[in-house]
């Protein structure tokens, strides 16, 4: 006991002395005082620090490399090629280069994911829907394996959904107990070409929750009922080839079978039914016919892009279908997806003097089934314009504004052919507390409708995230984009644990 006290006392005295001397000037850290104290360090890679050249007069150089021991051997004499990034293989490279059989054992895969549970309720008068808007647990499993130049990724959601009526997995719509988000192989084929084939998430364009030239499928059901933001993008079954050159880079995406948006059909979200001319719900599902002939009902999308100075610029092309069922099959009560071809361009970059990032994007939607605008069952051609600006207002508070205009072409005289939409986003972070609050607001003065999307999240530890949010939809009319959804206003809570 006495020995213990003596030990503690002497330690305290030593600490006090150390603190005093540290007050005058800091003690040299390990590695600068020429003494080795490296034992027990977590990396375990060092044999103790070595004084560098110029500190102790000796020629420097350690086991780690030849740099200080004289000139580097030229290429071909064992010095390794400076260009070949895998030259001088080190311990950490071997993992990626193991030549195990294709797809290998489970242990060769990097596994991870999360469990996400959330529940939500409708908070305004509802139309033919249950009061519970969301009650589900989603387990994401992501498995990734890489070889030199090849990476395979599988990401799947196992879903237990108490609100859904369908539990049989439908991989196309994502409904049911299994939602396969990704299953693809990426191949860095050459210096100038990459290929990614299989189920994948695809995104391009400059808008924030607003899309002009990104005609890859969206999941609006998830978006409006309070699933994670990352659920907004639905997967495509496609091949993407990317080509790189000094002149420009080119992405070409081929989708052999049309992938529609996960659009609103009455299931989960009440909507304006064009045949009934009123807002309906679960009992009156939208009757949709989707083009689904493999290699016939296909989609092409392309983007040429390059960085010009500090500005990202791009040209876009798409050939396929309207992504939501905006056409009506003649003499029926069925909606469908008419043919669509689009052309567009965008630019994004810093704003001089003012600071922040601005973006502009335009698109021309050529409605191939009704180019003259004479067929009332098919949407007319459109011109779309987006202008956006985002900046930090004060530290940890950023804001953005977007103006989005859609103009229908060939509309009859006197009909209001424009839709203006404004969005405002405010995001406040408290980094120390791991808390973040976001308000994303949409408002259309022409349609007199809007959507408020507040979210707040807190990560009490690295593994846990708690989230609370609401989806408040409103509108003067029943048949506008947000107005038709006004009976779905809801609030939700969620919890997620990562592994």
């Amino acid at each position, binding site marked *: 006991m006495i020995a213990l006290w003596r030990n503690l006392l002497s330690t305290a005295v030593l600490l006090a002395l150390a603190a005093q001397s540290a007050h005058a*000037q*800091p003690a*040299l*850290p*390990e*590695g*600068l005082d020429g003494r080795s104290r490296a034992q027990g360090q*977590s990396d375990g*890679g060092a044999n103790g*620090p*070595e004084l*560098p*050249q*110029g*500190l102790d007069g000796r020629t420097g150089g350690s086991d*780690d490399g030849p*740099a200080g021991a004289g000139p580097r051997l030229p290429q071909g004499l064992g010095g390794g090629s*400076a*260009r*070949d*990034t*895998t030259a001088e293989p080190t*311990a*950490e*490279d071997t993992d*990626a*280069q193991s030549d195990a059989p294709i797809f290998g054992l489970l242990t060769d895969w990097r596994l991870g994911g999360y469990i996400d549970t959330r529940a939500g309720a409708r908070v305004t008068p509802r139309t033919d829907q249950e009061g519970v808007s969301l009650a589900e647990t989603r387990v994401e499993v992501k498995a990734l394996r*890489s070889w030199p130049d090849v990476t395979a990724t599988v990401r799947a959601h196992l879903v237990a959904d108490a609100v859904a009526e369908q539990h049989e997995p439908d991989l196309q719509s994502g409904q049911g107990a299994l939602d396969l988000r990704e299953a693809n192989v990426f191949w860095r084929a050459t210096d100038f070409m990459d290929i*990614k084939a299989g189920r*994948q*998430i695809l*995104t391009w364009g400059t808008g924030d929750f607003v899309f002009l030239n990104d005609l890859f499928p969206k999941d609006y059901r998830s978006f409006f009922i309070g699933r994670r*933001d*990352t659920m907004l*993008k639905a997967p495509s079954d496609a091949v993407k080839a*990317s080509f790189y050159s000094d002149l420009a*880079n080119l992405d070409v995406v081929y989708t052999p079978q049309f992938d529609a948006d996960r659009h609103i059909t009455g299931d989960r979200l009440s909507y304006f039914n064009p045949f009934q001319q009123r807002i309906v719900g679960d009992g009156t599902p939208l009757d949709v016919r989707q083009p689904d002939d493999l290699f016939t009902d296909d989609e092409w999308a392309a983007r040429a892009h390059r*960085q010009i100075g*500090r500005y990202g610029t791009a040209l876009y092309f798409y050939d396929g279908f309207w992504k939501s069922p905006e056409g009506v099959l003649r003499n029926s009560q069925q909606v469908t997806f008419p043919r669509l071809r689009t052309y567009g361009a965008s630019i994004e*970059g810093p704003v001089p003097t003012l*600071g922040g*990032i601005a973006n502009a994007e335009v698109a021309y939607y050529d409605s191939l089934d009704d180019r003259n605008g004479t067929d009332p069952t098919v949407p007319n051609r459109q011109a779309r314009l987006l202008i956006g600006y*985002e*900046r*930090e207002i*004060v*530290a*940890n508070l*950023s804001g953005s504004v977007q103006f989005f205009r859609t103009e229908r072409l060939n509309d009859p005289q006197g009909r209001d052919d424009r839709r203006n939409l404004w969005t405002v986003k405010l995001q406040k972070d408290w*980094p*120390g507390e*791991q808390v973040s609050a976001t308000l994303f607001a949409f408002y259309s003065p022409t349609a007199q409708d809007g959507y408020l999307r507040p979210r707040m*999240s807190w*990560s009490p530890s*690295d*593994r846990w*995230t708690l989230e609370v949010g609401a989806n408040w939809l409103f509108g003067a009319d029943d048949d506008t984009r947000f107005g038709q959804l006004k009976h779905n206003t809801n609030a939700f809570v969620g919890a*997620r644990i*990562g*592994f």
Partner: protein
Amino acid sequence: MRAVPTLLLAALLLAPAAANAQSGGAPSPLEIAERAEQAAYYQAKDGRARVQMDIVDAQGRIRERTMTILRHDMMKNGEQTGHQRFYVYFHEPADIRDTVFMVHKHPRTNDDRWLYLPALDLVRRIAAEDERSSFVGSDYFYEDVSGRGANEDTHTLKETTDTYYVLRSEPKQPGLVEFDHYISYIHKETFIPVQVNYFKADGTKYRQYTVDKVETIEGHPTVVKSTMRDLRGGGHSTLTYTQVDYNVGLSADIFTERYLRNPPRGLLTSGE
């Protein structure tokens, strides 16, 4: 991604200090500051490291982040231009795994920063420009790791000890920073800033940076462990660098959208 606010990762993380300090006449305060900046941010043509960040709050709760950081210096006629590129790939925690943060650092204008969010396949430019805000929720500021230019402050030599040049530095534009002045203890031979204390106008010391360990790697004295303390809040953050490698041969192409969307997995550090 909430966990990466307005940050930039960076040079200090990978930067070796000057190895070949020349003895001779005493340098001027500005020269010392410039040498320290040069030593800390512009050695070797490129670098790679695995970086472990431990963020400890006043209650002792620990958060951990693990990253691979790649750095590339832009060259012209064999000379460094001052422009640098950084690629930060997050291994942990699970919530931000596979997220990539990329920076093109420009010496005289604001940096360009991008974030890649894999679940959305989304490449986003980051608008935030405040360099003195938290890096991934830690006590380090973006600027602590990307480097504060020596020309942004006025330096006076307070003292010269056997080991250190002691510099007092005051900001030329006080409105842009939260400190009144800071005192650096710069190792005379390597020019590594071993300790930096930050003060408010009333003389309160509220923030302290210390180098805990230096290793010589490929001839470059390299900070492999450092700590930033928030003396008022009571928290601190520690950065530990392993698998440090210089002159890896990282091509400038890696620091483009191509590799943002699909990381150069053979070049990332591994977890053992």
